[in-house]
Structures are given as structure tokens and as C-alpha cells.
């Protein structure tokens, strides 16, 4: 089947199988910042934004995304750069595997609730696992990013 996607502000047409998930289609077409972790909705590293809302691309059938707008971390470069700076300053980076999905989720939190308090930040990030850091430094970096008016 042919599907139309708007990925990072570019229109694309892809030939996909009805059983294929969005993650498979994105990675096959070189959007490799979208990672495969658990592959069953538990870890969050496959997160992309579908119409500005985070979704696990490992579990959305590609055909269901037909006609929708997709953002990967490449599509939010300016915001990802800002967040990356705060992550660096707080020493929140380790292996980096979860960073693209974390950036997308935090960006969508900023769109939805720019004044998020500590609890709301924690709640919003429940589905994004990081196996390196222990989250404290990330939490500090996210708070600074949300307050960043630059």
C-alpha cells in the first residue's frame, strides 16, 4: 500500500506492507535517530511526534499514520540543541541512546504544559526509560530547558 507522510516538514510517499509498523518504515528510510529498544511499547526510545503528540512508533501501524505529520529529532533541531546544552551542563548525558526520544517527549511537554512542575515532569516521562543516568540530572536539565526563554 502507498502512504503519504509529512516527515520533518517534507512530504514523502512510501510503499508499505499492512503489517509494518511506523518504526520499521522510518528506519528503512534512513530516519535512524528513531531507535528500536524493547519493541513492545515499554521503553520509549522509538518515540516520534505524530501531529505534535508523542507516540511509540514500534506499535503504530504505518498505514494508520497515513496523511499525518511526523517529527523525529531532526525536525526539532533548534529545540533539541537547546535541550542538549542543558543536558551537557547538568552532566545528564551518558550513552545517548535515549536522547532523541527524550528530546521529542520533553519538547512535546513544553508545547502542552510549559509551566510543568516536578510531578508533572515525572508523570510525563514515565514511558521514557534511560538505563544510564538515574534521571536526577535529566530532571534538572529539563527544568532549565522549560524555563529557557532564549
Amino acid at each position, binding site marked *: *500500500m502507498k502512504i503519504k507522510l509529512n516527515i520533518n516538514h517534507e512530504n514523502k510517499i512510501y510503499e508499505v*506492507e*499492512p*503489517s509494518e*509498523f511506523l518504526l520499521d518504515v522510518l528506519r528503512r528510510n534512513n530516519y535512524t535517530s528513531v531507535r528500536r529498544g524493547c*519493541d*513492545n*511499547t*515499554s521503553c*520509549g526510545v522509538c*518515540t516520534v511526534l*505524530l501531529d505534535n*503528540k*508523542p*507516540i*511509540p512508533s*514500534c*506499535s*503504530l*501501524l504505518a*498505514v*494508520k499514520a497515513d496523511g499525518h505529520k511526523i517529527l523525529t529529532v531532526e525536525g526539532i533541531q533548534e529545540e533539541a540543541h537547546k535541550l542538549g546544552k542543558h543536558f551537557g551542563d547538568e552532566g545528564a548525558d551518558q550513552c545517548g541512546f535515549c536522547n532523541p526520544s527524550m528530546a521529542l*517527549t520533553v519538547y512535546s511537554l513544553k508545547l502542552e504544559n510549559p509551566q510543568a512542575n516536578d510531578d508533572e515532569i515525572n*508523570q*510525563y*516521562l*514515565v*514511558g*521514557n526509560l534511560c538505563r544510564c543516568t538515574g534521571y536526577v540530572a535529566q530532571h534538572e536539565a529539563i527544568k532549565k530547558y522549560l524555563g529557557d526563554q532564549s
Partner: protein
Amino acid sequence: MNVKEYVVVDHVDEAYQLLNQDKKNQIIAGGAWLKLSVKEVNKLISLDQLSLNYIKEEKDFIKIGAQTTLRDLETHPAVIALDHGILSDAISNIMGVSIRNLATIGGSVMGKFSFSDILPVLLVMDCKLYFHHKGEMDIEEYINTRRLDRDILTHLVIKKNNRKSFYKRVAHTALDFSMINMAITYDNLFKISVGSQPGMAMLCKETMALLNKNDKITENLIDQALKIALKELKLSSNLRASQAYREVLVKAYLRRGIMQVIK
């Protein structure tokens, strides 16, 4: 998972016909559990073009389209206002935001998952389901009916109540299934349900009857109610928790819930 064909229907009746044409045809709701629950499908039927993603607030009730995402439900002011926010609260504790952006209320109900954190809550609200063919069905009848005809859930109607409420889920981690979950609503009368027994959620009718026929809720009465609850529930063991542990959890949280709603 193998899907032979993906069909987007323009009318709910078309979906109904296709669903009943072949046992291997299936409806896709949000699709969040598709990977874990589906092996072989001939026609996977999408309701995405039927405009079933809506929350309409009427004078006495709220009407919710089956394709409404859990996240949209959780954050809608009219849903937050129902029974002191019990439904919104329960949904907000289901996995992460991204899953709740995919999963729909229709899929959550039709999946009839015994681990569901939503079904116990719907049981203590005044909730009716509306199917394309069968029409109206009470949520409790739906849960208690073993073999249902293949039908399509189009919407739910929940009565606007402002009762005091209590919801509790206990799980090993935020992302894990519940070991037990429990919902209570109260406005002179109690409605109490327990799910993830690990079997299907149920109303604790005998417990409710005992509490509801007494004007004064005393410690002694609560002790009796807990005994009845453990007798009428079907608690058992699975990988997540033993029956004995579930019994301890039910006793502790049922007492706490009752005390909280009568305050």
C-alpha cells in the same frame, strides 16, 4: 504478526459486515496492543474515517466516541469533573503519555483485558456502551457476558455524577500491569469494584449491600465488609502477586478507600 489487508471503512455498517464475514477479520482501534495480541488477520478494519474521536458534554451525561484516545479523555475538563476525577486519575496512571496517545477507550473496553485499569472504574460509574448492531448495553452486563456477538462499539455514555471517589492501583513499577486495582464511588450509597484479581474486574455486590443497608459506617461494619469482600472476590495467584498478598492489599486499600469517601 501477519495482516493480509488493511481496510479503511467509510461507514460503520461496512465495518460490521466485514467483521462478520470472516472470523479472521478484525477491527483495529488505537492498535497499542496489536503487536502483543494479534497473530493472523485477513482484513484489519480501521474506523479512523468514522469520526468516532469525540467527547460531547450534554446536560446529564458525557458521550465519548470509541476512537477517543486515553490521553484526550484524561485531560478533558468534563471527564476530570466526573465523580471527583476518578476516571481521569485511573487513566493517567496507565503506562506513559505516548501509549495513551495511541490507545483508545474503545480498544480498552473491547479488549476486555483482565488487567484493565479502566474497567473497574467504569463499573462504579453509571456507564452504558452503545454497539452498532446490539445497541445499548450496561458495562456490567458486558463484562459478565462470556460470549458476545461480534459487534462494533461506537460510543460510551457516562452519567454526570459528582460522587466522592477512591481509586487505587498497586503495581511493581509504573509500567507494569496492576497486581490489584480498586474503584469506589459514594454518595450515601457505595459502589465498589476490584480488578486484576488477576481475573476480570467485578462489582463487590454483597459488600456493597452490607454497607448500603447500614446508616452508620463503623470500624466493626468495615471489618465485616472486608470479610465479605474477600469471600465474594475471586482473588488468585499469578506471576505478579500471590493470592495471599492480593488479600492483604484488598483489605488494606478497601478499608482506606471506604474511610476516605465517607470523610
